[in-house]
């Protein structure tokens, strides 16, 4: 494991992106756990309908209001409706009227149909949470890569025709937050598998083009463990090519060879990632099944690496 300087992870707002299913939420949960142990007030922010943190921490469902999912770790889910009401309240100043606007059947249909409304209210909510000095670090779990790119592009999309007005303010404060190297970092999470590597390299290139964004770490998750050392792997290959053919233990050797190949492929993938992505890296070995042990293991690794 690299021993990176802990600096990007000390910023107040951390975005995490990467191909779906690479264990982004688990890494986030581990970072939050490590931060809580260090006496900070981590807040996990999830977007949309699906909540991973309640499963990961075996806590009750996470809702719009931050709730404690593990000792010192809070989580919130940016649900569309309350986030919309929060946004409207920030403009109209009166919550009851904001609720009426959000519930007006015609406007509701417009808000549900119009592209961009999701992203706007989400950006507003993240900025609102960031302004509340109670939380830090704020760890935002962005969905798949395509979705994340759209999310970061929104300010520039809106900028085209928003000269002034309330949305302009949201866009400006979001742009300011995203562009502030003291307050914000974007991390990429991946696994050492060929398809994931291609997508990660593409994502990194896209994010790099955006000069206003500040990339933090590349987290490489689920590196297959090395079961045997190099000599032992050679012995396995040798046996399978000769003396062990057809023997009752041959299937075990074949399994060992298979797992060694998997580890080797992962090694190639990691070299490919290092070749194309110049971010400081943290790698984590594949862990056993239960989410509690995974989080505990990862947060120990993070602490050992000196993140505080």
């Amino acid at each position, binding site marked *: 494991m690299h021993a990176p300087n802990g600096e990007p992870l000390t910023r107040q707002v951390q975005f995490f992106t990467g*191909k779906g299913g690479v264990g982004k939420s688990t890494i986030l949960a581990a970072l939050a756990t490590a931060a809580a142990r260090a006496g900070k007030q981590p807040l996990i922010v999830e977007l949309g309908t699906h909540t991973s943190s309640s499963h990961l921490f075996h806590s009750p469902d996470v809702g719009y209001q931050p709730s404690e999912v593990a000792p010192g770790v809070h989580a919130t889910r940016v649900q569309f409706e309350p986030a919309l009401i929060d946004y409207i309240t920030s403009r109209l100043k009166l919550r009851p009227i904001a609720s009426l606007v959000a519930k007006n059947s015609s406007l509701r249909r417009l808000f549900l149909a119009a*592209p961009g409304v999701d992203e706007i209210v989400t950006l507003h909510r993240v900025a609102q949470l960031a302004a509340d000095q109670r939380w830090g670090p704020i760890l935002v779990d962005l969905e798949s890569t*395509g979705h994340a790119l*759209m999310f970061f592009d929104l300010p520039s999309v809106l900028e*085209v025709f928003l000269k002034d*007005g309330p949305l302009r303010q949201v866009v400006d404060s979001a742009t300011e937050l995203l562009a502030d190297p003291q307050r914000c970092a974007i991390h990429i999470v991946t696994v050492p598998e060929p398809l994931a590597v291609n997508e990660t390299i593409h994502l990194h290139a896209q994010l790099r083009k955006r000069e206003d964004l500040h990339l933090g770490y590349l987290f490489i998750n689920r590196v297959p463990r090395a079961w045997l050392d190099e000599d032992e792997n050679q012995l396995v290959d040798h046996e399978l090519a000769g003396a062990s053919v057809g023997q009752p233990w041959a*299937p075990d050797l074949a399994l060992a060879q298979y797992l060694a190949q998997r580890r080797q492929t992962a090694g190639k993938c990691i070299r490919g990632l290092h070749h194309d992505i110049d971010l400081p890296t943290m790698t984590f070995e594949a862990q056993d099944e239960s*989410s509690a042990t995974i989080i505990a293991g990862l947060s120990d690794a993070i602490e050992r690496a000196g993140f505080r």
Partner: protein
Amino acid sequence: MIALSDDCRLAFCVGVGGVGKTTFAAALGLGEALRGKSVLVLTADPARRLADALGIRGLSDQASDIPLPTTSGELHAAMLETKASADEIIRRAAHDEARAQRVLDNRIYQAFSNTLARSHAYAAMERVHEAVHDARYDLVVVDTPPAQSSIEILDAPARLVSFLDQRVVRWFLQASDESPQLRGGAIAQGLLRIVAGQSLVSALTEFLTEMAFLREGFSERAKEVQDLMRSPSTSFVLVSSADSIGMEAAKSVAAEVRSRDFALAHVVFNRTFIPEAARSSADPVSYPKRLAALASKLERMRALLTSEEEQKRSNIVAFCDEHGVGAWSLPEARRPLGDPSALAAWIEQARSVLPRT
């Protein structure tokens, strides 16, 4: 064996990301093509994995033919490029170059057509509609984007119908009209100006005016897609991993699908076992002396992998029982799946799990 029912015309692959959904969509389409159907696999995923899985250089909005080892069926693949699909929709609906151009030049249209999740969802909906009505295809397999955006795609038709059918559009177009029916609309529009800003509301009005000619057709097709999604010839296939985290995600996606009255036809659990060629026997073996040093490591390795597989298997059985749905369980791939023959070899190893009730 992995196969859809014979009368299936449209299949949506749904699920959270990173579980091999795109690869499976490609394999499913391939399997049906090898059974003699003419299949289009359509990926709505903004990330470009379908081309990788099928071993071709790239995909576009136009369908590409995928070479098959058989002559009875056909396999085609296309990627949804929002901008290209949306432009095409406008051109077709406008019947008039100048009218189409005015929409294409509209700044709202330009800003939104290429970038946002909901725009993707609308363009996907149109593309699915078009593909299903294309006589060249017997079956359309849609690979939806991961989780949240996938739900976005499933909800797009209903949302659009609801918006276009309503007075909302009318008050944008007749904001100067002082008739009493429209007064409520005027008040709402005033509020909208406060929350969204004058410039956006004006731009939106301009856009909806330009788009007026499209509304009817758009709304009609959205309704048709909505009906199509609930038609008996449409199947939803949920793709997931079978570890504990994957099972939670699968439950939540299954609930999303069911709550919309869509038919969850099958569940696919990926990477649930080691491929046959690398499997070890379940019985303990005695190793020769020269391998004595390896024996304990090999035994530990086998024990751990066996218990992982068992755990996954029992997760799958429990899921099938709870949801009354059949599952296909797939091994992890030995090599990256990058061409039709590798895909075919992979799904041939599928094991079937049926609910016990």
